[in-house]
């Protein structure tokens, strides 16, 4: 048993997998000497050396291209894109090349890549360093998308992502980096495509992701005081999406709320709302309600950013109001 921060869990998970698979390599900006701008890769170059932990120039296309070329010729690769906002700079590689090559070649190539990136707001960095881009990547056929909310999930889901033969985008939340949790000794391996009920309840279901999970849990505590029993689901992986856990919960509670950090349009919750409307309509006692960041670029000022991203207050108030 060791206590890990979310931040340290990243290096812990990578180290576990690099010890297991000597062919696994990682590349990215400032990851080796500096240990990552979020200090998520500290110590890795000392253990695995600069050939396996490679610093790159500021060349996001070259980073993902090198990852893809290596992966399709037999070397599994972890690529770090420093901030998820920068995915826009190398979106061609991710959306057109990495995601589609297996299909386009009739299954001739396998691309075992994990693209790790720091996602989400709360750091007062403004609109180009704070975005929640899960919907950017979720909409591309051929990409798996993972967004852990706890240190243990960071390790277990990172290991599962690395062992997955398909390309995975792994979203590490900037505002969860300092969170702590005990993790068991020995190998930690989770699986993709499994949501988790993190709090049981009977009156409504709240589906949340990453930073929104602890906020949904705190809101559920407050709702309990008001006599509302909320079940909270940590969605954990957007692709593959564990719709059964969500549908099962909705069949029990008859109400669904999603809590999404992404801007409103085409957020992951819209897909879940659509699935529930389509397949569990008769289980519902009221509308599916999405709680999201408004459809705006994220502002930098502390006060404004806090107003934008769903807060415990907003989640609690929205659920109370819409359940009333």
């Amino acid at each position, binding site marked *: 048993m060791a206590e890990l921060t979310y931040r340290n869990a990243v290096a812990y998970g990578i180290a576990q997998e690099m010890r297991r698979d000597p062919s696994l390599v990682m590349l990215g900006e400032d990851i080796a000497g500096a240990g990552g701008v979020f200090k998520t890769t500290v110590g890795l170059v000392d253990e695995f050396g600069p050939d396996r932990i490679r610093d790159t120039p500021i060349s996001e296309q*070259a980073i993902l291209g090198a990852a893809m070329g290596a992966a399709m010729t037999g070397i599994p690769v972890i690529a770090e894109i420093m901030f998820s906002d920068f995915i826009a700079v190398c979106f061609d590689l991710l959306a057109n090349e990495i995601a589609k090559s297996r299909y386009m070649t009739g299954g001739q190539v396998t691309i075992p890549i994990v693209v790790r990136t720091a996602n989400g707001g709360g750091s007062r960095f403004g609109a180009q360093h704070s975005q929640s881009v899960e919907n950017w990547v979720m909409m591309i056929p051929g990409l798996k998308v993972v967004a852990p909310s706890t240190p243990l999930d960071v390790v277990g889901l990172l290991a599962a992502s690395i062992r997955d033969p398909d390309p995975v985008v792994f979203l590490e939340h900037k505002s969860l980096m300092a969170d702590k949790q005990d993790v068991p000794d020995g190998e930690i391996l989770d699986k993709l495509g499994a949501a988790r009920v993190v709090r049981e309840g009977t009156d409504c279901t709240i589906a949340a992701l990453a930073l929104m999970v602890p906020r949904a849990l705190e809101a559920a505590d407050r709702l309990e005081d008001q006599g509302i029993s909320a079940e909270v689901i940590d969605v954990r992986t957007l692709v593959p999406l564990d719709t059964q856990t969500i549908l099962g919960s909705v069949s029990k509670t008859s109400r669904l709320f999603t809590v999404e950090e992404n801007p409103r349009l085409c957020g992951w919750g819209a897909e879940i709302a659509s699935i529930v409307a389509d397949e569990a309509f008769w289980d519902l006692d009221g509308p599916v309600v999405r709680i999201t960041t408004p459809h705006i670029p994220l502002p930098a000022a502390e006060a404004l950013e806090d107003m934008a991203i769903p807060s415990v207050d907003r989640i609690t108030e929205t659920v109370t109001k819409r359940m009333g």
Partner: protein
Amino acid sequence: MSTQTRDEGLYDYALREPRLPAPENRENDNIGIPIEARLEMYEMQQLLRQFEKRAYDMFLQNLVKGTSHLSLGQEAVATGFGRVMRPDDFTFATYRGHAHTLSRGADPGAVLAELLGRENGILKGKGGSMHLTSVEHGMMGSYAIIGAHLTIANGAAWSARMRGTDQVAVCFFGDGTTNIGAFHEALNLAAIWDLPVVFVCENNLWMEYTPIDLITAVANPAADRASAYGLEGIVVDGNDADAVYQVATQAIGRARRGEGPSLIEAQTYREQGHSRADPAKYRPPAEVQAWKERDPIPMYHERLLRLGVPEGDLSTIQQDVARRVDEATEFAKGGAVPGEQHLLTDVWADGGSAWRN
């Protein structure tokens, strides 16, 4: 080369001064290439030429669907490199990739069937002309978004080194590609990591419909950029398979010995339009004419005659190739239209496309 400057405002490019090819270098008769290798390169150029002419005919008959980009006139580049590459080396090409796929040994029937969108196509009909790939032949893909594949070729070269092999990655692209950021990112990374990769710019003087010199800061779009990455600027006659063979031997040899990347600019000409039935009327007629007179295949034919190969041997090769292309055509036309069972496969490594449970 044209004397017009970028801002003269002449937009009917057909009226520009023609950009003429350098004269053939007869000295290249004496490059030390065994005659068997030369005969193979003659045969390959014949195959590429006859195959693409057939593909074009089938396009006009509405049998080849979608788009296709032919390399007619550029065959010597794929041929020279293809002859030098080892079976385990990696090719990365663009949407103009028929020649680069065939030159690695992929089956012409399966390639043509792909152009027809048939189940017996090399990609089961899922990729089409612009994405030809044959991993078993080291042909790692044809990429249709300008620039990306230079960075991917780096990855294959990096992997070769990590796996302890001496494989080399060769990446082909057009002159227009030298103006996109990925080109520069890829060259820099290849240089700093000393990767075993050879970048080959096929400078056919035209981007799509715009003359490359009008939109590029330097006269040689690839070679003049090489020094920015600490590389030698190499220009080769891309219409002479022997000259290409020679630079390919040097560059691939360097890469294989661990001496790092190369950037080569092969000067050539696209004898037809950019894609599909583009009649390419935007080009000065005298330019098209001059380059057709420098067509790589008749030139190579003449060289082989000068080197003492009997005309009869060459016509036998031509006829054999014609037969293969006819067989490929029959194979392709005989393929089934892909069934629904193929639609939802090959997204994931498990063979399927499920995104939810």
